[in-house]
């Protein structure tokens, strides 16, 4: 998944970035809201936002994004543990709320859960015809047979599964999968989608000509 992490604490920010990167996610880490403006318009699978930032409130920033009809799943990371704070955080558009200190493993699990819910399924394993995808295990099966995927192929599959039923523009898919490296490899997506089709069947990923790619919603 491509994640935007806004956290001003160096120790925590770096730790989370490295931990989540180690789990196969692509993490863009900003230390302030001002820094985050550089990432405006970038597609993300989820946002990880600290409440108290040096140049403003992460909560207000998230509320503004929600007002702008941005429905990217968001997790609020904060040291504020009062019930009223949690209620306020969730009411402001956060999909989940994690009180510091937390284990990065828990953050990762919640992230997957939030993204699954956002994709319309609560279960870890999702079915798309003969293909099954387990977002937690980062694995895919075709007719019950486990299929080995490369990192890029998995990233494309994950991005499309999390947006099942919706068209994902090629540019967005490039950003989600390759991040800022997308500009360096213009045909990388086509290559990896082609690989996916070979391994999981040609009817899984649909090309919507001129618009992008789509995986049909779960049956």
């Amino acid at each position, binding site marked *: 998944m491509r994640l935007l992490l806004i956290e001003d604490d*160096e120790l925590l920010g770096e730790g989370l970035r490295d931990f989540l990167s180690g789990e196969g996610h692509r993490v863009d880490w900003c230390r302030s809201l001002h820094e985050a403006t550089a990432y405006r318009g970038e597609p993300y699978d989820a946002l990880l936002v600290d409440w108290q930032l040096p140049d403003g409130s992460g909560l207000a920033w998230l509320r503004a994004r929600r007002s702008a009809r941005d429905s990217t799943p968001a997790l609020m990371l904060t040291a504020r543990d009062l019930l009223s704070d949690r209620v306020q955080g969730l009411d402001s558009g956060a999909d989940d709320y994690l009180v510091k200190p937390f284990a990065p493993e828990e953050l990762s699990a919640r992230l997957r859960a939030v993204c699954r819910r956002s994709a319309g399924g609560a279960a870890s394993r999702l079915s798309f015809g003969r293909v099954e995808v387990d977002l937690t295990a980062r694995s895919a099966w075709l007719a019950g047979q486990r299929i080995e995927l490369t990192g890029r192929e998995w990233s494309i599959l994950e991005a499309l599964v999390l947006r099942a039923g919706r068209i994902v523009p090629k540019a967005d898919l490039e950003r989600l999968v390759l991040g800022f490296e997308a500009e360096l490899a213009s045909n990388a997506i086509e290559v990896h989608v082609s690989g996916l089709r070979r391994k999981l069947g040609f009817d899984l990923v649909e090309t919507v000509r001129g618009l992008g790619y789509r995986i049909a919603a779960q049956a």
Partner: protein
Amino acid sequence: MKSGLPSIRTRVTRALLGWSVLWTLSVSLAVCLAVQQEIDELLDDTLLAAAQVLDASLPTPSETSAVAGTPKETNEATTPAPSGRFTWQVVEYSPSSGARILLASPLAPTHPLRTTPSTGFADVPAWRVFGTHLAGGTHLLYVAQSQDERREAKIEVALSAALATLAIALLAHLWLRARLRQELLPLEHLAERLARHDPLILGATLGAAERAELRPVHAAIDALTDRLARRLAHERAFTAHAAHSLRTPLAGIDAQLAVALRECPAQLQPRLQRVRSAAARLQRVVTALLTLFRSGVDLRRQPLDLASLVGRLPIEGLSITVEASQTLSADGDLLAAALLNLFDNALRNGASHVIVSTPASAALRVHDDGPGVSAAQRGELQEAIAAQAYEGHTGLGLMLADLVARAHGGRLSLPEVDRGFAAELRLAQA
């Protein structure tokens, strides 16, 4: 109000009752003394007046002598009507025969009221006598009134006065009691207002005092409330800052350790894992300390699924069995902090298994399989908890558990168990 404390109403009522009795007795005594004197004078005046009337209406001394020997039949038409209490005699004195009654009222004594000629007032046995010379003669007229009659009159007057005083005192007492109750009502109203008063709201006051005497009390409470609200606001701000300053680096340490564990060589992993466990314990302590800051404030009771609550607690190295037969109503965050620290206690004291149970609807027991403590130690711990003398006696775990129980209106107890150590949080019913 059966608190054993002195009651203003009872004390004032008793004082009023005492003073009422004293006042009644004093007034009655004063009235008796004054009335006795006046009645004596009045009755003496009556005797004097009667003597004057008789003097004018009785026969002259020569006529009187003529009728001597038949005193009971003389001239009754012209003399005052006889009375058992009031009588008169006309007595003649001579050196040869002594005193001789010439005339007398029908019920007068048969002996002369005075054996020697005497004028004026005098008390003789059973009679109050007034003597006077008959006009123009040497005979003496004695007018007398029985002492019993006079005593009876005095007693009647004194009794009437005493009863009237007593009635007034009784009425005054009842009225004052009712008035006192009425005047003490503002104190009850003040207590009701205080019960509804929320000191956490900055600027909140008790409102106008109902009595001038209560103004200083209102002012003192308002000032206290204001100080308390500011102090709480200050502490909340501090807690928020402290929470941010402590929790964020702790989360950072854990994240860094998680990455390091993943990346480090296999031989370093156990050491790093120990460091991470210590960091996790530090997190629990910090969470507990921050919880302590707000225990007793912002209590938010809700029905709790104990198994779910325990399942969410980050504790490693301890197997936990939840035997929750009762649904608890408690503040989930506070209870989680208390449980986490009790588990941590158990772990550090060599326990490997803990049973969490609900022996009653408002009680939560944590029973571990560690070595436990001796009966004497348990007694000392229990006493320290009861007196809230935690320092030097209990660890953070028991202290926090007790504070959390007290925030719910209960307290922590350490029940006797066959094996291991048990702590029971008694949470008062919502």
